[in-house]
């Protein structure tokens, strides 16, 4: 067992994990008040999505612009359960139909729709948080990857899926709460999730789940599947000709990313206390890709740092210069993509780390960039990376 772990995770990777764990479990909780810590918890829920994107975009070369869909599905499943618990007949006595969520009453619904019924059960809800997005992702992925849709086309179709779901949720407001979302969530099995102590507990639950996802992602990356994904990203045809069912791997990795996102969404609902269609749409989905790009699309740890940093920057910027933060965000997007395609993790491994090592080993030896083994990871199937082709020659 021990040897398996050391096979899968080098000591070096474990050190990095430990540093992150130290930061999230010890440093931040001790240095922040609960308000800020709760914000960190909220940012961490986005890093679930970013980890999924590292898997399917960074390693698999599948860029999804619809991860918000899965984040939202997970979040909505959790919100439906919490809303039902908050809508006891006593608490909703002033409604024309007590016992159903308030927004249904406003929309003249007189009984709970059938698909809300099972969400009375917490067990079912937990299952649904995983299963609903996974099945949805499976349908999308099977339809697309079996027909070998990839690259840009896949990105745009996922975008359309996000648009469809947003319009549906907003339009069917009697069943979904519409544009307001599902709000005013109070308790989980009688435990008030709005208190400070609950927020601490939820934060640590979130961190624990995050590490669960991190280990799962690392496991996948370090396994044979991870190496196959990279091979597919670089030369899909060769992998296919070698006898592998390429689409099956893609489907699996996309579903896994969807499940990660959904867990993030469910934790978001718990920590923030509501869920709304504004997470399902295109804009949040693209923002989540940015978190991943900033952190480094090839590093699951980078994804976590990316989500944390971008959101910190967003919060601070919008507090001090509310009218200027879009400039800063836009510049950040462009800067990361143009100058640091591998994000923070890339900067770390190509600039910082060699220097630290050089400091300890042989001072002033090689140029840092030359030691970077992952200098061309940005290639994706869509661009059919072709080494023979001269690099976009200038006339």
């Amino acid at each position, binding site marked *: 067992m021990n040897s398996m772990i050391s096979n899968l995770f080098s000591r070096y990777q474990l050190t990095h994990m430990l540093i992150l764990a130290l930061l999230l479990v010890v440093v931040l909780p001790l240095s922040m*008040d609960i*308000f800020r810590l709760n*914000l960190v918890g*909220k940012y961490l829920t986005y890093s679930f999505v970013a980890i999924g994107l590292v898997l399917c975009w960074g390693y698999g070369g599948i860029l999804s612009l619809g991860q918000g869909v899965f984040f939202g599905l997970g979040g909505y499943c959790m919100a439906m359960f919490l809303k039902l618990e908050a809508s006891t007949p006593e608490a909703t006595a*002033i*409604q*024309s139909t007590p016992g159903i969520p*308030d*927004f249904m*009453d*406003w*929309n*003249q619904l007189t009984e709970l729709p059938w698909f809300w019924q099972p969400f009375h059960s917490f067990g079912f809800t937990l299952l649904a948080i995983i299963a609903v997005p996974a099945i949805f992702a499976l349908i999308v992925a099977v339809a697309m990857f079996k027909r070998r849709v990839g690259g840009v086309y896949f990105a745009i179709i996922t975008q359309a899926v996000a648009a469809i779901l947003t*319009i549906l949720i*907003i*339009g069917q*407001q009697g069943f979904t709460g*519409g*544009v*307001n*979302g599902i*709000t*005013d*969530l109070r308790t989980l099995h009688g435990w008030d999730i*709005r208190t400070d102590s609950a927020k601490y507990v939820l934060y640590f639950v979130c961190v624990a789940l995050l590490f669960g996802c991190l280990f799962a992602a690392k496991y996948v990356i370090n396994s044979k599947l991870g190496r196959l994904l990279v091979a597919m990203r670089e030369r899909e045809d060769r992998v296919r000709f070698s006898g592998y069912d390429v689409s099956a791997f893609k489907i699996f990795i996309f579903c896994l990313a969807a499940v990660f996102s959904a867990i993030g969404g469910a934790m978001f609902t718990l920590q*923030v*206390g*509501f869920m*709304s269609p*504004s*997470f399902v749409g295109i804009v949040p989905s693209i923002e989540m890709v940015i978190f991943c790009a900033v952190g480094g699309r090839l590093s699951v740890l980078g994804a976590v740092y990316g989500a944390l940093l971008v959101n910190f920057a967003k*919060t601070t910027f*919008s*507090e001090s210069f*509310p*009218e200027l*933060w*879009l400039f800063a965000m836009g510049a950040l997007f462009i800067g990361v993509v143009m100058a640091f395609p591998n994000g923070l993790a890339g900067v770390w491994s190509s600039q910082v780390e060699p220097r630290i090592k050089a400091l300890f080993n042989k001072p002033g030896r090689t140029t840092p960039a030359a030691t970077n083994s992952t200098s061309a990871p940005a290639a994706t199937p869509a661009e059919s990376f072709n080494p023979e082709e001269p690099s976009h020659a200038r006339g």
Partner: protein
Amino acid sequence: MILKSRHYDSPKGARRSFLRKMLAIPAALALAHASLPALADDANTTGLAVTKDTVKVGILHSVTGTMAISETGSVQAEKLAIEQINAMGGVLGRKIEYIQEDGASDWPTFAEKAKKLLVNDKTAAVFGCWTSASRKAVLPVFEQYNGMLYYPTFYEGLEQSPNVIYTGQEATQQIIEGIDWVVKNKGAKKFFLLGSDYIWPRTSNKIARKHIEKLGLSVVGEEYYPLGHTQFNSVINKIKLKKPDVVYAIVVGGSNVAFYKQLKAAGIDMTKEHPLVFTISVTEDEILGIGGENIEGAYAAMKYFQSLPNDNNKAFVDAFKAKYGNDIVIGDVTQAAYLGPWLWKAAVEKAGSFDIDKVRAASPGIELTTAPEGYVRIHENHHLWSKTRIGRAKADGQYEVVYESKDLIEPNPFPAGYQ
């Protein structure tokens, strides 16, 4: 058609010029100091951000994102009110300092910023939110941390929180008077209801439909389009086919511009009033984007128009233009946002304390005789008693007020039979 004489059932003070009041600043200042209770700690027993000379409040609107278009006016109005209050000596002798946060048109951000304003900044009141979604998102935060929100937008009702003062009209105030008027004065019999697809237009149209059907008249169509929709030719064709007397339109945001431009282009001349276009969602702010010539002849039911001819309003419009330039327009929500700081000031002074609970207890019955819309009073249900006016859009982007309800209309956020 135009009402020549206006009835003000408010006290005489209602007509006192706002400008004169502003000129009397030194006097007011002296008065304020004389009438103040001792500036002791009892003005703030709950640890709000109140010092001997200052009190902190929050302004929470979107200045970025899609809603910035609508919310800018509210921010401007709130800042103006705060400035004027400070010029008069502040509240209980304290100058108001505001902390502005950007909701970025994103509901969770609203919740996050609301929490920051209450928990970290300990603001004594927050003026903000615009869409129902943003209000719903911050509501649990205000209730949990016991804050006070002054919410300016006309909205769908169905809500009454101890932690919110609703300075805009709820749906029944805006709708029922308007429909009665159009039925009585324009002989309308057939209505076509149209809206953007979210809760406010849907709930409003529901109230409208119930009322129309109660009057024994008919609704010949009801349509909703996604927010941000820009192609309305299909629904315009439907309108032509169904030949309603009134098109009752609750379209919002960028869709508004598309709808009215396309309506006009399709040969529906609103000035001919056949069909008559009636809206509750287009204020002077929106006309700026639509273009006056594209909406000329449409009717709107609201509680405030920039062209209201009373002295309070003239002073308000002058002050607003002096601060933000001559081209600025003021819509219903902007005026409602302007009421927020004044209502809060009055409640604080009545309570003699900034404590949220005391301010809340003092709020019902607070009246504002200096309101640009004339006179308002806070109801026990935290909404405002207010009049409803009907305006006819002119090519220059202003409304001509053609009707004003005789009495203040009671706010009724939970109308029986309309739910």
